[in-house]
């Protein structure tokens, strides 16, 4: 058992075409660190140059937004699913 990280379609090309990856991790941060260590190209899409999660990246653990949990320090355990959800927005001006 491990923590499963589901990779959205726009980022799969940077993750060897994988739809998901599994890691042993006790927090969201640890899981995402392991994900970006394995697939370095993902880092610039998920994090700013200052190392913060980009504002248009939503991270959910078992269907819950980590902004309403403990952000990246949200604890994880075996069997949990982390979803990286692209923020979808726009407009004319």
């Amino acid at each position, binding site marked *: 058992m491990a923590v499963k990280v589901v990779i959205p379609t726009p980022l799969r090309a940077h993750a060897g075409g994988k739809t998901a990856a599994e890691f042993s991790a006790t927090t969201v941060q640890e899981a995402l660190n392991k994900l970006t260590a394995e697939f370095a190209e993902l880092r610039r899409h998920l994090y700013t140059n200052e190392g913060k999660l980009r504002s248009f990246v939503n991270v959910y653990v078992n269907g819950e937004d980590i902004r309403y949990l403990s952000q990246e320090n949200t604890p994880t355990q075996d069997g949990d699913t982390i979803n990286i959800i692209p923020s979808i927005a726009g407009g004319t*001006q």
Partner: protein
Amino acid sequence: MKDGLKVRMSERLAAALREHAMRTYPHECCGALLGRIVTEQGAEEREIVAALALENQRDDSPQNRFSVAPRDVIAAERAAQAQGLEIVGWYHSHPDHPAKPSEYDREHAWPWYSYVIVKVEQGEPGEMTSWRLKEDRKEYEEERIEVHRSEVTK
């Protein structure tokens, strides 16, 4: 427009996108584009098979902004998977504005997805275009929309 960069959809689907854009006018509509991608001899064939109309969450400025709730993104992904498809892009309308992505669109877009924009002029749907953000996020490439008469089996 780059040669070979194109997206296909049926007449019926194109009409559905225009109808949604007309229905929400003067507000922007939005939705998910479900489809499949087949690569043959190095050439990518991107077919949009279905559209999932979603609610614009921007109550504060729906006439020139749209956003999709993350829960709707998750639901759209599940709907796509259930049909053996994937989310290949998103659509929205530009009420009384050209069907070209704005700087605000670019700031919020992701590479890889097809972003279809439907222009609505005085309540009447008009030009429909599709765009993909380059990997460096600096600009879009327009992709040709190929509308065909036959329905694609899901």
